[in-house]
């Protein structure tokens, strides 16, 4: 039965999420869910190099921006008929962004840990500066626009929501496949001790690049969906360091190198942030409340919610097993003692 628990959980999760737009939710709720799904996809994608391989990229939003500008630039010159063409372009954008990301990763991944984080954050600022200054291409600070989606106002969010849900299913399926394959085993070895991993023949460079390429490709696709959803993009929002910070925090909160951790983190943090912004927005106190939520969880569950909970359950199971074994031992000792 345990074998089917994982797939059953996924089926229930995606069925419930797919059914949500049919419940006639208010626009602001669906809008909030669209952004939550965006962050869930990006956190899950970041988790591949950041969680499984132990390479915490702080430059992922550069690829988000790349995807966003690719979408805008293409449809600046090509008419949108049905409204679904920008979605059809997503796989191409994903592959294109991954191809751009690979040489960057090959260079950046020569460094590790905090140095890698600094190298990648540099990439973020270079990309943002380019977006501001390549005016002919990006429109600079004036921004760039994509023709508005011709969807009816009543269900405007629904196509974006469903596409993002499909992207989430895609990235989670990839993560699941990775965890069950020798790619995942190799990434875990790289995260634990890369030098040692190389010394036992692990294809460290290949699996690192693979994780990074897939991750930035998916992030680029989310950027493209975001650009289409927003309609008008500016460099400071398309390449916003706060997006990077959010996806890293979400992954850490839910639990790195787990399938559900980044999704849980995204749902908790994004919804909490939106809720607190609505409740305390005028006073800006929501930022303090948001930070407090994060601090409390990290204080109580330092490895993230899922790994800490799994550890706790594991220890409890083991304690019970030891208790019951020692109980049986004591009982059998007594029984032997009773014998003449």
């Amino acid at each position, binding site marked *: 039965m345990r074998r089917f628990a994982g797939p059953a959980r996924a089926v229930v999760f995606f069925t419930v999420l797919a059914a949500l737009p049919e419940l006639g939710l208010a626009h602001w709720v669906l809008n909030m869910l669209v952004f939550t799904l965006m962050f869930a996809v990006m956190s899950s994608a970041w988790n591949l190099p950041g969680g499984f391989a132990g390479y915490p990229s702080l430059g992922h939003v550069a690829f988000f921006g790349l995807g966003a500008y690719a979408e805008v630039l293409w449809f600046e010159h090509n008419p949108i008929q049905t409204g679904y063409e920008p979605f059809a372009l997503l796989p191409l954008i994903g592959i294109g962004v991954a191809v751009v990301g690979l040489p960057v990763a090959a260079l950046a991944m020569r460094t590790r840990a905090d140095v890698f984080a600094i190298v990648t954050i540099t990439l973020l600022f270079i990309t943002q500066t380019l977006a501001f200054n390549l005016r002919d291409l990006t429109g600079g600070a004036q921004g760039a626009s994509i023709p508005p989606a011709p969807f009816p106002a009543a269900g405007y969010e629904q196509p974006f929501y469903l596409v993002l849900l499909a992207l989430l299913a895609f990235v989670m399926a990839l993560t699941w496949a990775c*965890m*069950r*394959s*020798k*790619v*995942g*085993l*190799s990434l*875990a*070895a790289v*995260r*634990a*001790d890369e*030098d*040692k*991993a*190389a*010394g*036992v*023949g*692990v*294809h*460290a460079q*290949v*699996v690192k690049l693979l994780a990074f390429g897939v991750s930035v490709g998916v992030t680029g696709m989310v950027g493209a969906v975001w650009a289409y959803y927003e309609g008008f993009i500016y460099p400071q929002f398309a390449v916003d360091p706060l997006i990077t910070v959010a996806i890293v925090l979400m992954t850490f909160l839910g639990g790195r190198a787990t399938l559900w951790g980044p999704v849980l983190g995204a749902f908790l943090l994004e919804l909490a942030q939106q809720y607190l912004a609505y409740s305390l927005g005028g006073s800006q106190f929501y930022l303090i409340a948001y930070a407090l939520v994060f601090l409390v969880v990290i204080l109580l569950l330092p490895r993230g919610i899922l790994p800490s909970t799994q550890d706790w359950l594991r220890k409890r199971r083991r304690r019970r097993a030891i208790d019951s074994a020692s109980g049986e031992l004591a009982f059998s000792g007594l029984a032997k003692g009773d014998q003449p």
Partner: protein
Amino acid sequence: MTALLEVAQVCRSFGSVWALREASFVVEPHTVTALIGPNGSGKTTLFNTVTGYLRPDAGRIRFDGHDVTRARPAALYRRGLSRTFQQARVFNQLTVLENLVVAGGFGWAQLFGRRVTRGDRDRADQLLAEFRLGDVADLYAAELSYGQRKLVEFAAVLMSTPRLVLLDEPTAGVNPVMIETMERHIRERHAAGMTFLIVEHDMNFVMRLCDPVVVLDQGREIFTGPPLAVRNNPAVLDAYLGA
């Protein structure tokens, strides 16, 4: 007979300090060769250089007839040269079984296959049973004692059926029972045709197990010979005792 490993005139410096100065020696196939020397004589640097973790400044290293002077650790491992570390290095976040599987030396085709196949499990189970680690197969390596981790590291390098195993202080920090276990496994593998190069400070262990013994001092080889000859060699005594 062609030497399995040839180290010729290898030099390596760190800043102005020379850790290896034209170090030369050979490891013949099917031997248990010891590499000994006082602290700071360059043993671990030599290990790191031979296994591709450090690049030599000068000199040549040949393994199984091929020049491997600039080869990377992963490539050397796939050629059949594997090693353990002075401080037991295992993958703490992996289970004991996975520690063995990941060291199994899988190729490109298997990279996208199952994390642990039936074949992997059978092979790892067999080794774990030999090392009496079957009971801890599904525990995380971080949960093991230091001695157990040493054994896991040793068992893991055997997964790829290497031709030459370099053991860096296999007895350091482990209890006498564990030393006996380690010695038994080395003897069994050696009898099966495996070659060993061992850095060790426990001279009783070296004298019981190894022949020949290579002595290193100040980055160069000063003597190579059988254990008894090493014991009585004035140059070796001078290096150790400063007499």
